[in-house]
């Protein structure tokens, strides 16, 4: 059985790189860390992995991205994969969008940029524990 996946989604390369490095350091090699630069790409990756029978445990995603926004993305994911832990990591609070994500996508938590490593890792761990 292959290792489960944690997926990071953000249109900003600087965020994606440093976020993945942070998660990788904190959570170690029990997980595979995948990245996508927008929601469409992320959905493609999710489908691919699903076809290969790889399980996705958790997604950390930005809200403001070109094309599909983070809340819509999370809702779509939830419809197909309700068990994936979903965390929003956003630089700008569109409160209505965040509320939608909580309601329709069972969002685990919404964190704000700049985030503290402690808060991020605690949130991820608490989310993974729910599984």
């Amino acid at each position, binding site marked *: 059985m292959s290792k489960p996946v944690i997926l990071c989604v953000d249109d900003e390369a*600087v965020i994606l*790189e440093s976020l993945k490095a942070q998660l990788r350091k904190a959570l170690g*090699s029990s997980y595979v860390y995948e990245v996508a630069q927008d929601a469409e*790409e992320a959905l493609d990756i999710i489908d691919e992995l699903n076809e290969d029978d790889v399980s996705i445990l958790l997604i950390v995603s930005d809200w403001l991205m*070109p094309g599909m926004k983070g809340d819509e993305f999370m809702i779509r994911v939830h419809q197909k994969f309700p068990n994936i832990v979903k965390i929003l990591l956003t*630089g*700008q609070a569109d409160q209505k969008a965040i509320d939608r994500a909580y309601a329709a996508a069972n969002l685990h938590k919404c964190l704000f940029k*700049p985030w503290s490593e402690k808060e991020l890792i605690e949130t991820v761990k608490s989310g993974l524990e729910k599984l």
Partner: protein
Amino acid sequence: MNDMVLNADEPANILVVDDTLANLQLLVGILTKHGYKVRPAKDGVQALSATQIIPVDLILLDINMPEMDGYEVCTKLKSDPKTRHIPVIFISALNDVLDKVKAFGVGGVDYVTKPFQVEEVLARVETHLALQRLQNNLQLKNTELAQTNQELANTLNRLQATQEELIQSEKMAALGQLIAGIAHEVNTPLGAIRSSVSNISKYLEEIFEDLPRFVDTLSAKEIQLILKIALCSINNKQLFSAKDSRKIKRAVTRELEEMGVPDADTIADTLSDMKISEDIESFLPILTHPDSTRMLEFAYNLSGLQRGTNTIETAVERASKVVFALKSYAHSDQKNELFKTNLIVGIDTILTLYQNSIKHGVEVVQNYAEIPLIYCYPDELNQVWTNLIHNAIQAMDNKGMLTIDVTQERGFAKISITDSGKGIPEEIKDRIFEPFFTTKPPGEGSGLGLDIVRKIVKKHLGEIEVTSVPGKTTFTVYLSMNLQPDSSS
């Protein structure tokens, strides 16, 4: 008495001055019969004191009088500001030498010669009374006019002050709207910086942990190889998209599996994060070493120090750009000085402010020709670009294509801003530059934007034009490239 209005309804006051009682009585009789209020005076002294006490609208003045003749009385009347305005008609006897020059010279307005015709006297009296009435009215009207002018001047000043307030509040309102988007634009770099700092800290921690052990247990060659891997990562500045990185990762995984490296996919992932995709065979000794995980991680940590600093540098630049753009925009433009400016930098600065809206679905195309620096009012031009770009993005509902073209034409810098929105209807196209004209609901925009834009463009001796069809609306701004600052500096 000067401000007395000779009302046509009120009978006029006439002073008759003659030393001959019979003449006096005759004239008083004629005039009284005709409806005038008449006062007699038998000499100059009486006449002068009368004018000080009672209202007098016209004086009939005998010339030939003892002690003070008519000319002297008239001169005295004209030298007193209180009585200067009263029209004086001289009465002269037929056999008197009437010095007409002197009569008009001392300020008389007319004369009658005795024996006079009643009709003639009445006609002249009425004429001069009418004249006086008109002059008084004119003076009143002039005073009113002067007052009205002053009020208008005051109102104009207030309007100008109000307009400036409106311009300022328009700017602040637009600024307020931008700030929400800017928070995101600054928080993102901050997020990258913070997490990079945390990562660098972790890397250093582990480097200090691992280094003594490696120095003890590894050969010099092995340590050198680890350093080589780290250097390889640091030197590889190629940027791949996430998609391409995944493809490369799959290829590397296969390669590693073929070389018999355990845990191929994890190692491929680490190498991918280190941007290493070639020459992997040379790293085999490390990758197949029992302590391979820690050794590769050491190389990852070392090179991670560089990756982290690069990220921080990029992020700081991004944040600085946004703050600079904000500062430029909010900067008070009271200097009103011509400044040699790079127009394109100015436009791009404003675009930075709108990154947020642009990310929502606007594609930006920039066609910039090389144009020289020009003297202009850069703060005011910022308002122009802000206004036009803001309008363009709004017109497209934040989705579509924004094209900015910069060229030069016949001594003018030519800047075109095109949006793919639904366009401006023909009927209102001529009105959009009117102050206070807006198609937005009340409370959403003062309608001053394009008026202000046009004023600023004109200040640059330029023009602004608009063409519009549904799907393509273009505002073109021409700015003179020949403005020069005062040569007195």
